[in-house]
């Protein structure tokens, strides 16, 4: 731990600030100026990007190279208190943070720039909520960057949820959109679904946090990853296992929700209803991988957790979920026709890869794949966005004969109420786009090859290989699952590439699809460069059994591994000595040919098969998907249908959890009060019954009162009357005389002395009374608090004032009286 405050690293405070300022400024001031709005948003993220790429990240690397490890915590500012404990907020930079600070702002910046073109800036079809879009994505960038830089899990959670909110808002960005097919989910429903499903994961996350916070008394990384704390947690029994395990699994619940792992994966495919830059930014590169980053961040906890809890067949729970998701989602991806749908399932599957890696202890490999995947998946999504954009314009061109005659209608391509609804996302409508959109095709190709793990040149190869290598020595079952998934991944990638770009156009729209503007294609090419080069930082230093560092004379050839690998040592304060059983450990291994060959073999086979099925003889218009046709012949049509329909999980959840909640809500409402006027449910019914009981009692008492009590009273009264006759004479003569006398005296005073101040208005009397009261209270205070020698003159003065005021009022009322009489 560096105790010294470091100026350059402290700049990290400002990284989330600038996008936040853009978010605040856009709705408050510049909403109507589109250009200024996107300039602010891009400017905000550009400054953040510059700060992190030029100052924070290099400084972090430099410090790490100097000291061999890095865990910097800035000076803290007071933030929370509970009992005697104080919780400070600060910046925390370690290698895991640093690589995120490299990747996130860069990808964000690319996508921000791309959005300008995608949202049709400067054309008649510009989105009517253009500025709002940039405000939302700026807030999102704040969330992602804020999540990374701060020093504790609580801010992590806060920004995590802010991202979730942005995700909700952006998925439902075209909230008025309806589809002719009522079964197709609308953007607003998709947003809601995403929010609720991830919220379920977040519940676990929040409980885990609460548990950890209560047990440790802090959520700062410095405190919770302290070896003593970890040991304490691992030895505190809780719910049949130990506290560390429960907390780690609860936190993992957050990952399952956010990273769309089985069984909470259902929200991500529908999240594609949002604009494509959003899919790239939030639902591929950053937010969904935040779930994986959570596991990276809290890895020390997972390490001390008992990995046999909830394990199946020797596979730890986390790896199990990850591996299953990886293969399960890649199977579904094969049968998707939506160009973004394929990518969505691919994202789920790749996230499963990372989770599986972390689950078997391959900490660095998981983090590495997170970074490479962010680049090539963002690239793929943006390319698909470019394709969709081209298709929309092509369709528009066909149906409106160019852009004229449609001005002011706004985002025409996005609305579903046109002649016959045309789905620009459907790959069956595409084909032959390679020639029409060459730059997009190139970008898509590079992204696709990286995703498929094409050997040596792509980034995806190196990171995937590292995971497979770790799995090979860590857990053979996981290895084989992941290897098969790699094959499937390559297959659907080839299918997608062929369906989209190869052969002849299958529709008029595809025939007229233009290449996108350069503000869209430039970010594509930059990301494409990263999708290749970023893998080089993680080339194993003993590949081909050569001692590469020695051979090339470069100190850190497998730089990524050394850099990120030092995170854990740093967190443990350098002395990694945990006396706990059953914890995960990264397999220490030499370079092994087998996993690399097997993995590459699966990948290349998948690519080749895909090409043979879809590429050799491209699909013609109206032709059925080849795989579907083949499976039908083998009486497996139902399986293809199931894959296409996502194995009916949406249907299942809708008819169990959603249905049950709604019915339960109705039952509760009925039980409570209900909404039929004049009727009451059980709970309120009891109250109403009590009311009736009260009334009944009062009726009974009333009767008792009238006939019994009153009867007695009347009896007494009669007796009294008899007595009173005798006293009558005394009363009339003596008592009345005195009363009348006083009355006459008062009348005299009133008539002669007080009349002048009677204006006849009640308000006036009250005003006088109020003023008098105020004066009295003031006098009281004055007598109580003033020194003696000031008292007398002040009192005299006040008295004079009151008298003057009284005179004034008297004169005033006289005047009004005379006015009235005149």
């Amino acid at each position: 731990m560096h105790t010294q405050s470091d100026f350059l690293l402290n700049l990290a405070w400002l990284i989330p600030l600038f996008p936040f300022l853009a978010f605040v400024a856009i709705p408050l001031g510049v909403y109507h100026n589109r250009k200024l709005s996107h300039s602010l948003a891009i400017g905000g993220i550009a400054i953040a990007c510059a700060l992190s790429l030029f100052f924070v990240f290099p400084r972090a690397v430099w410090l790490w190279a100097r000291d061999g490890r890095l865990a910097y915590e800035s000076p803290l500012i007071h933030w929370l208190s509970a009992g005697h404990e104080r919780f400070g907020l600060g910046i925390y930079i370690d290698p895991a943070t640093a690589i995120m600070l490299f990747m996130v702002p860069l990808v964000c910046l690319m996508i921000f720039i791309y959005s300008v073109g995608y949202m049709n800036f400067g054309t008649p079809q510009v989105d009517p909520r253009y500025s709002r879009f940039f405000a939302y994505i700026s807030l999102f960038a704040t969330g992602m960057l804020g999540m990374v830089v701060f020093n504790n899990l609580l801010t992590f959670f806060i920004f995590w949820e802010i991202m979730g909110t942005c995700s909700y808002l952006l998925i439902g960005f075209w909230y008025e959109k309806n589809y002719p097919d009522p079964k197709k989910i609308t953007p607003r429903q998709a947003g809601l679904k995403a929010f609720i499903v991830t919220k379920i994961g977040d519940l676990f996350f929040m409980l885990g946090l609460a548990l950890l916070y209560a047990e440790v008394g802090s959520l700062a990384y410095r405190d919770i990853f302290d070896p003593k704390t970890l040991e304490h947690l691992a030895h505190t029994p809780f719910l049949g296992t130990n506290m560390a395990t429960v907390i780690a699994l609860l936190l993992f619940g957050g990952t399952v929700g956010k990273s769309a792992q089985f069984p909470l994966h259902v929200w991500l495919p529908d999240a594609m209803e949002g604009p494509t830059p959003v899919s790239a930014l939030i639902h591929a590169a950053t937010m969904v991988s935040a779930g994986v980053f959570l596991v990276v961040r809290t890895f020390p906890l997972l390490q001390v957790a008992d990995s046999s809890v909830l394990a199946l067949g020797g596979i730890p729970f986390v790896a199990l979920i990850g591996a299953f998701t990886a293969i399960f989602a890649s199977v579904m991806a094969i049968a998707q026709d939506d160009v973004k749908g394929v990518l969505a399932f691919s994202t789920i599957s790749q996230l499963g890869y990372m989770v599986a890696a972390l689950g078997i202890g391959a900490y660095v490999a998981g983090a590495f794949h997170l970074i490479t995947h962010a680049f090539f998946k963002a690239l793929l999504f943006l390319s698909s966005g470019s394709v969709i954009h081209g298709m929309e314009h092509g369709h528009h061109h066909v149906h409106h004969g160019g852009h004229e005659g449609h001005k002011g209608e706004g985002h025409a391509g996005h609305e579903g109420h046109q002649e016959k609804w045309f789905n620009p996302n459907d790959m069956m409508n595409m084909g032959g786009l390679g020639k029409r959109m060459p730059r997009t095709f190139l970008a898509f190709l590079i992204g696709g090859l990286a995703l498929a793990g094409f050997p040596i040149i792509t980034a995806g190869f190196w990171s995937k290989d590292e995971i497979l290598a770790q799995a090979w020595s860590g857990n053979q079952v996981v290895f084989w699952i992941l290897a098969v998934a790699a094959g499937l991944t390559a297959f659907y990638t080839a299918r997608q590439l062929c369906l989209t770009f190869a052969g002849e156009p299958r529709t008029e729209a595809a025939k007229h699809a233009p290449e996108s503007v350069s503000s869209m294609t430039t970010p594509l090419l930059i990301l494409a460069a990263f999708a290749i080069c970023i893998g080089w930082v993680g080339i194993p230093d003993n590949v081909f059994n050569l001692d590469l560092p020695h051979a090339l004379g470069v100190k850190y050839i497998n730089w990524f591994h050394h850099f990120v690998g030092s995170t854990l040592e740093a967190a443990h304060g350098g002395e990694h000595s945990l006396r706990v059983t059953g914890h995960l450990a990264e397999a220490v291994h030499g370079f092994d040919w087998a996993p690399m060959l097997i993995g590459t073999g699966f990948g290349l086979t998948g690519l080749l098969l895909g090409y043979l099925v879809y590429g050799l003889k491209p699909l013609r218009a109206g032709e059925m998907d080849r795989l579907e046709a083949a499976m039908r012949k083998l009486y497996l049509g139902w399986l293809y249908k199931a894959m296409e329909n996502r194995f009916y999980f949406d249907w299942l959840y809708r008819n169990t959890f959603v249905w049950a909640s709604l019915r339960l809500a109705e039952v509760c409402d009925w039980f409570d009060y209900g909404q039929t006027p004049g009727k009451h449910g059980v709970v309120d019914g009891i109250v109403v019954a009590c009311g009736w009981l009260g009334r009944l009692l009062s009726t009974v008492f009333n009767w008792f009162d009238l006939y019994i009590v009153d009867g007695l009273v009347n009896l007494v009264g009669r007796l009294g009357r008899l007595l009173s006759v005798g006293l009558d004479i005394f009363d009339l003569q003596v008592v009345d005389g005195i009363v009348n006398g006083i009355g006459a005296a008062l009348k005299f005073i009133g008539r002669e002395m007080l009349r002048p101040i009677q204006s006849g208005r009640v308000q006036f009397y009250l005003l006088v009374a109020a003023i008098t009261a105020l004066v009295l209270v003031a006098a009281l205070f004055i007598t109580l608090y003033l020194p003696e020698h000031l008292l007398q003159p002040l009192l005299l003065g006040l008295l004079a004032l009151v008298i003057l005021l009284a005179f004034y009022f008297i004169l005033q009322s006289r005047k009004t009286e005379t006015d009235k009489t005149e």
Partner: protein
Amino acid sequence: MYFPILSVTLFAPLVGALLILTIPREDVKTIRRLGTAFAFISLILASIVWIGVVRAGAGTMQYEENYPWIPAFNIHYYLGVDGLSAPMVWLTALLTTLSLFYSARTIQERVKEYYFLFLVLEWSMLGVFLSLDLVLFYIFWEIELVPMFLLIGVWGGKNRLYAAIKFFLYTMVGSVAMLLAIIGVYFQTDPHTFNILEAAAAQPFRGTVWANVAFWAFFIAFAIKVPAFPFHTWLPDAHTEAPTAGSVILAGILLKLGAYGIIRIVLPMFPEPFKYFVLDSPIIPVMAIASIVYGALVCMAQWDLKRLIAYSSVAHMGYVTLGLCTAAAAYGLGRLEGVDFNAAASAVNGAAFQMFAHGIITGGLFFLVGIIYERAHTRDLKAFGGLASQIPYYYGIMMVTGFASLGLPGLAGFWSEFFVFRGTVHFIPLAAFIGVLGVVFTAAYILWKVVQHVFLGELDKERWGKLTDMEWWEKVTMWPLVFIMVFLGFYPAPLLDSFNAAITTILQNLP
């Protein structure tokens, strides 16, 4: 002896109310200005008080004023504030000011009576938060019913009389038991006292069955006010029928009186019975959990926007009860040292934070319901749709407030839930594991029921095409609330430190 700022703060609204009586009823403008001005004066005074309290440490009673009132029964006029009551006093003044400011444009009938009653209402609410004498507390507690009864009964909706009477009687029933318990406490202390702090230190009825009786007498009175399941059915009626500002005060302050009573009186005075009914026979945690989960479910079934938000108060106030249960559980388990103490304090902090945050958030929601009802003349969720494009400003404000209500981190509502769960999961884990479900249902009813039905989807141009966005006075009403939600969401320290200091003292003083 220094300036009696508490008395001045307390009586400023009453002076304003009396002054209003002196203005002719036709002079509506002056009445409105004067009323709002006096509420604002008390807001300034309350700010001064709060700052002073925080500066002085907030852990002990400040600005105490203690004069014998009825010496024969040792009844005192005893006022004082600490870090717990000062923010509530401030919240009362703030919401009253905003309510009166907002009402200036919406209340056209019987303006004079309205402003008079509102200021009397403020006076009595301030009195509850400031009193440290049980009799004084009780008197203010009862006085506050009258203006609210009239506000609902006179300016309310269609079914106002029923709602007003239900509200009045229901709360009255609770208070009667409380009065008896107060007298019991008096005779059980030696020397006989109504002083809340002294009585808490004396632990009346300790070790006897009567402790349970007295505990329930207090607790039911407060639980009705909170309201905790199953004593909540007066609330949907009262809230739905009350005029907008009335609902704001009802949700924003009146419910908090009950919660405040539990923290200030029940927890310190009767920790033994409290822990018994939390741990040994867990009636109160069940009430809290039911309020949270069941309340949220009932919300999901509502179709009247105002009624939905009314029910959301039941659900949200459940967190307050749950947080206090946790403190009692910590006490009962004898775990009030070190990390455990901090967790328990955190739970009570969460409860207190919820009192404040819910006041701000739900107050804001009721304003927003009023704003849309003024224009649309309906609150039926099925009637709306697609309004986001028609009234974007309103949509923006509603989104922030709605997200705050569902406990989104980064907005004020999150802290209360999180702090409460932090404590609860430590001492009564089962309650936390069930209660957390309420969070999902809350998200569902806010986003699905409110946001989706009102704002999203296609706009019915014919019906809503002429709907106007928020006017400047409505914006002015909402902005302070939105600002507080966001500010506290990111930086809760100013409020939290104040609560924490007072609550640490309360917990440390438990026997």
